[in-house]
């Protein structure tokens, strides 16, 4: 007796995936001028950051890392440790690749903050909007990152622009969430006090809510930075050059040492970005004042 029908779902619709794909491609083609404009902008933005990074002498970058590490953690030891870590990347011969990676990550983070911070502020104002957007944020965060690569390539082609777009979509979520959360968590009496002295909405936002929420917002910025770093290897699949690409090549050719070295460089970069920004944020917090 055949009981296979028990173990397979009995009903399915025929999805015309071809049609959907065609429609998306058609859309991309129809508005190619618009998407090309964005692509150009992003590509030149990444290029500009890379130009700056590659024109900074290596020892100045090392000195900067030492300074930030020392300032942020109040220990000479931290400064020395972080500069040595940075030097290791250079010693492995990955300096220029690191600059390429860094420029895509930084461009992605800057764009993510440009959109994420205002969206977070808007969400904090409206319980309604928050309830609508939250599932979308959940989706953006849990969707396998590779899925973002396909539309990014269709609309923006291979290259650093697509990489930035995919990075932005994936990494924007924490800064939105934590900005909104931070502003909501500001003490109600503090907000009432500001209102009772006749603050306008903007004064309330910039003089009270944002400064009070700053530690939380900064945690969001840090998270966004880390998530952007985690996109480095994935983005190399759509033509982002840099350390990620090294890892990808190593995987394809099964070159253990090459993969390991490039992978280590990614890890070191991530650690540096995390620690240095963390130190800087907590430093900011302590300074306080006007």
């Amino acid at each position, binding site marked *: 007796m055949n009981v296979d029908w028990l173990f397979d779902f009995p009903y399915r619709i025929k999805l015309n995936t071809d049609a959907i794909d065609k429609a998306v491609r058609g859309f991309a083609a129809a508005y190619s001028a618009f998407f090309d404009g964005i692509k150009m902008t992003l590509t030149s933005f990444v290029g500009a950051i890379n130009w700056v990074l590659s024109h900074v002498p290596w020892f100045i970058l090392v000195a900067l890392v030492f300074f930030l590490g020392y300032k942020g953690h109040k220990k000479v030891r931290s400064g020395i440790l972080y500069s040595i870590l940075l030097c290791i990347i250079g010693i492995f011969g990955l300096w220029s690749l690191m600059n390429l990676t860094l420029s895509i990550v930084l461009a992605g983070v800057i764009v993510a903050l440009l959109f994420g911070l205002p969206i977070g502020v808007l969400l904090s104002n409206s319980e309604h909007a928050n309830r609508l957007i939250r599932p979308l944020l959940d989706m953006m965060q849990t969707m396998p990152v590779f899925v973002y690569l396909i539309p990014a390539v269709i609309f923006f082609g291979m290259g650093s622009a697509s990489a930035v777009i995919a990075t932005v979509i994936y990494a924007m979520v924490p800064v939105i969430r934590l900005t909104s959360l931070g502003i909501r968590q500001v*003490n109600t*009496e*503090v907000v*009432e*006090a*500001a*209102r*009772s*002295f*006749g*603050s*306008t909405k903007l*004064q309330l936002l910039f*003089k*009270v809510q944002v*400064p*009070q929420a*700053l530690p939380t917002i900064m945690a969001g910025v840090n998270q966004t930075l880390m998530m952007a770093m985690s996109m480095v290897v994935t983005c190399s699949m759509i033509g982002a050059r840099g350390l990620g690409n090294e890892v990808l090549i190593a995987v394809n050719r099964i070159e253990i040492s090459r993969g390991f070295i490039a992978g280590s460089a990614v890890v070191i970069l991530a650690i540096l970005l995390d620690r240095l920004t963390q130190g800087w944020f907590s430093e900011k917090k302590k300074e*306080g*004042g*006007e």
Partner: protein
Amino acid sequence: MSDIIVETRHVSKLYGIRREDAMRMLRKGATKEEVLKETGVTTALYDISLQIPRGKIFVIIGLSGSGKSTMIRCFNRLHRPTSGTILFDGVDLMKLSKQELREFRRRKVAMVFQSFGLMNHRNVLGNVAYGLEVSGMARGEREQRAREAIELVSLKGWEEAMIDSLSGGMRQRVGLARALANDPEVLLMDEPFSALDPLVRKDMQFELLSIQRRLGKTVIFITHDIDEAFRLGDMVAIMRDGRLIQVDTPEGMSTKPANDYVRRFIDSADKSKVLTVRNIMITPVSLIKPDDGIDHALRVMRSNAISSVYVVDNQMKLTGILTLLDAVRAKRDNIELSKIILKDIAKTSIDASVEEIMPLAVESPYPLTVVDEEQRLLGIVTKASVLSSLL
């Protein structure tokens, strides 16, 4: 200028969807609970009509949930009443545009909050100057005025301190300075001293009184403490379940309470004022036992510079008192210590009120002894401590 600065007329504030139905029920005399059950609407305030005199301290008192915090937030429209009007110097607050409301908040009223509502990303000066800053005053002028306000609340020298480094009392001084810096006509104070410990609270009450008498500001003060209300208020209003029960001077209210609720409220204050022996009793400096020798007794008295000593047995039961004179005489005549103990001494219980023991304490040549049911000695009450408790 009229003597009334703020007037509310039939102000109600309801939370919920079926507010119309709720109003209808309330008009027919339904209670807060009935309305909530029937319509799901919360009655924060119902039909409040108040007249607040200019230049006086007007205290609104009520337990939590009585609507007093909602009421005070209606005066600067942090809350908007569902119905009724509030007149501020004849201007209807309900009719102000957004722009006018902002101006009103910047010039006419300032509020002090229960948990201070200070911004810990600014220092004391930055907090105090905040109200002037948002009204667009130039930095130099607003800092000048903020410094004056800080001096007014005796915080001079703390301008650059961060909020987190201040004690509760000092934080509320900052809150008060911030409100005063705007030079408002009316000061709204929402349980400003409730979060402070009793001693600091007394200080702050005194400070507020002296500032108010000096500047002649109108103060609307919210509290749940009847002592505080009577100490500060020129007029006191009692609220319960969102309704106004009675408005009167403290004297008027204690002599003619409107109902039992008000009477109970006032009684609760009197009770807390009653001092008992427990509050003023002290521990005796030294004790001796009946079988201690005369020499030991004399030595104890000499080393403590006292003229009498209490005699207790091993269970701390009070036997009596031994005076220096008797002890010296007994030593000379070689009399046993147990024979010269004075056993007929004034005793009192620990829960007796100071009023009760007053005559006893004044007449007795020795400090009163405080004993429990089994005659165990708990402490003594001196004349000095009885008299000083009266102050």
